[in-house]
């Protein structure tokens, strides 16, 4: 990587860091209850992809499979985009920024969230393996395989930020202003 590439990347990281320190719709993630609601919505969005996979597995190729899977996928994206954006802001980028831009508490929180997400992912893989091995896989529609891969990707990628949003304690009062001398 050239010096110029490094500079561009560093500048991009710093901009992302600054953007994640600015509140965006703060009332949506101001309390632990609301952050947990967001995390639950994110989990529901992931479940939609898995539901679309199951529908395709059983009904594809058919119009019914298309009529169910595509709206589920679309709804999943519509729910997931704001949820992940808001949880990233709520956690101040602890899950998405480069480690060198985080302090020791944020790094510790990131490691804890990744550990929990890793365990959950392991459970999902075990369930998936049991389901695949216990069913007839001779005529599996490609559509369901593709949806399953998308589901695995998204689950693996987004679980850490959902876990972090679920776990995050309320920030100390008065943190946002400097009136707390």
């Amino acid at each position: 990587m050239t010096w110029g590439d490094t500079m561009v990347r560093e500048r991009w990281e710093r901009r992302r860091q600054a953007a994640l320190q600015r509140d965006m719709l703060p009332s949506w993630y101001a309390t632990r209850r609301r952050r947990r609601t967001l995390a639950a919505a994110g989990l529901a969005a992931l479940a939609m992809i898995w539901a679309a996979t199951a529908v395709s597995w059983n009904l594809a190729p058919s119009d019914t499979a298309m009529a169910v899977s595509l709206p589920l996928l679309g709804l999943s994206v519509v729910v997931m985009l704001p949820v992940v954006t808001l949880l990233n802001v709520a956690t101040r980028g602890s899950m998405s920024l480069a480690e060198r831009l985080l302090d020791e508490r944020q790094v510790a929180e990131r490691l804890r969230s990744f550990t929990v997400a890793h365990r959950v992912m392991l459970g999902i893989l075990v369930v998936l393996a049991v389901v695949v091995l216990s069913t007839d896989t001779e005529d599996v529609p490609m559509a369901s395989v593709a949806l399953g891969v998308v589901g695995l990707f998204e689950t693996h990628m987004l679980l850490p930020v959902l876990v972090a949003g679920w776990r995050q304690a309320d920030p100390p009062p008065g943190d946002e202003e400097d009136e707390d001398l």
Partner: protein
Amino acid sequence: MAADKTDGKEHVHNRIAVLRAERGVSRRELATALGVHYQTIGYLERGEYSPSLHLALRIAGFFEVPVEVVFSLAPFPRLGSTS
């Protein structure tokens, strides 16, 4: 001295809020001086996060006091108490 345990976690008491108020330093100023996120100072003050030895020493260094003045395994006596 036995470590104070809360919810099964070892708890380190600190006087960061008192020292910060006494010196007239805001959370953001302290955070900037230490190179940590400003919310981390709040979590430290509330006892919801125990710092590494390195950060504890830097906090003590910032206030120019020995580390045991800022951190303790036992609760600090309340102001005005005789014990």
